[in-house]
């Protein structure tokens, strides 16, 4: 279990957007997973099974959708928009592009945002993303495809406006 606590905690953090809620959710999920180990299908991949429980616990800590979106963006923004003093111009440009991308992410529906987070931020496979989010692999594919299309459209709009 210990080997999975980082990805589990990060999954919960991206869902709750709050470190202490993520810790609560992960701990509770681990307790539930320990108890449910006898129901775990032998030979099945363990990580997505565990992340399903983690994601479920994290969602149980639900707050308002608007707040969750804000926390998600805050969680990502806090760690990514630091300036690079060695390359101030390039860093500023990169930071601007990331900010645009973050704004566009904020406009997505939560299910699409979570699919993006699992697939690209946490590096889960499509299969793992599907298990974690409790949906079919095809659903993940279509969610990601729609999300990327929306992001491109939004970024194009912002580019045209700029």
């Amino acid at each position, binding site marked *: 279990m210990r080997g*999975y606590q980082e990805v589990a905690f*990060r999954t919960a953090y991206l869902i709750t957007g709050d470190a202490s809620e993520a810790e609560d959710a992960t701990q509770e999920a681990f307790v539930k997973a*320990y108890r449910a180990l006898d129901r775990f299908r032998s030979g099945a991949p363990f990580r997505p099974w565990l992340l399903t429980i983690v994601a479920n616990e994290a969602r149980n800590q639900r707050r308002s959708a608007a707040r969750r979106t804000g926390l998600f963006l805050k969680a990502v923004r806090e760690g*990514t928009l630091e300036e690079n003093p060695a390359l101030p111009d390039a860093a500023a440009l990169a930071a601007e592009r*990331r900010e645009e991308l973050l704004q566009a992410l904020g406009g997505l529906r939560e299910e699409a945002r979570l699919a993006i987070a699992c697939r690209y931020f946490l590096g889960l496979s499509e299969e793992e993303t599907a298990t974690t989010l409790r949906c079919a692999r095809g659903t993940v594919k279509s969610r990601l495809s729609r999300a990327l299309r929306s992001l491109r459209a939004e970024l*194009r709009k912002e580019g045209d406006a700029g």
Partner: protein
Amino acid sequence: MQDRERNLESELRELGSMIHYPPTPEVARAARGLLDEEQEDRPRRFRLSLPALRWAAVAAAFVLIVAVPAFSPGLRTTVSDLFVTKDTQMAGGPAVGGGAAESESGENAPASDLSKGSEAVTSPARAPRFGGARITPREARARMGGALLLPRTPELGKPDESYATSTSRKDGVVLVYTEGSPVDDPRNRLVLTEVPGDIESVYLVGRTAIKPKLDRVSVNRRPGYWGSARRLPSHVGQVLLWKQSGIALRLETNFPKERALRIAESVR
């Protein structure tokens, strides 16, 4: 823009790789601790459900305490030593009776004893009074209606001892963490008291004058107070008060304020 469209997936991956996540807490160990705690309770239930085993234990105890010593003088000495030790420990252990809040005034709280030798602070005569009778973790949980709150920081582990509070007004529990020290040694110790109610009605009755002198703090966005033993009665040193899930909590510790707050914020 063409480039950007092509690279959107790699941009998202890059964005993900740049996220500075908060440090991963030791959740696996904490979860394990909770499960171990549950398992410790389980054998007790098992034993109670099997009267035959209980009778076997009684018979074995009879053989050990009465029958064997009667025939063996050497063993008799050993068993009597065991009982003497036990009695001494009971006498030196936390006293039963006075409520935690009522037991010591600010002037003679153990914080002022810290500069004295260990002999003085561990003397049975100076043993702190934690509250009422010593109880098991299971009884503590039952006393709080199943909602016993515990710090979840791995550094603390499980409470070493539990007591019932003896205030006449409300039920509650006192959990003592000794970190391997003797229970009556105030160094490196932490005492957590839980009583249903509000901070004011449980811990600050008749002490309204000191309220403005306490530091206002936030425990997981809940208002609380932090003060020294001079202002609030304490077995240990500093005191942190806050309310959570309808329970007024008092954490007494010698740890610095930040560490005390971190422990308080892990309570659930």
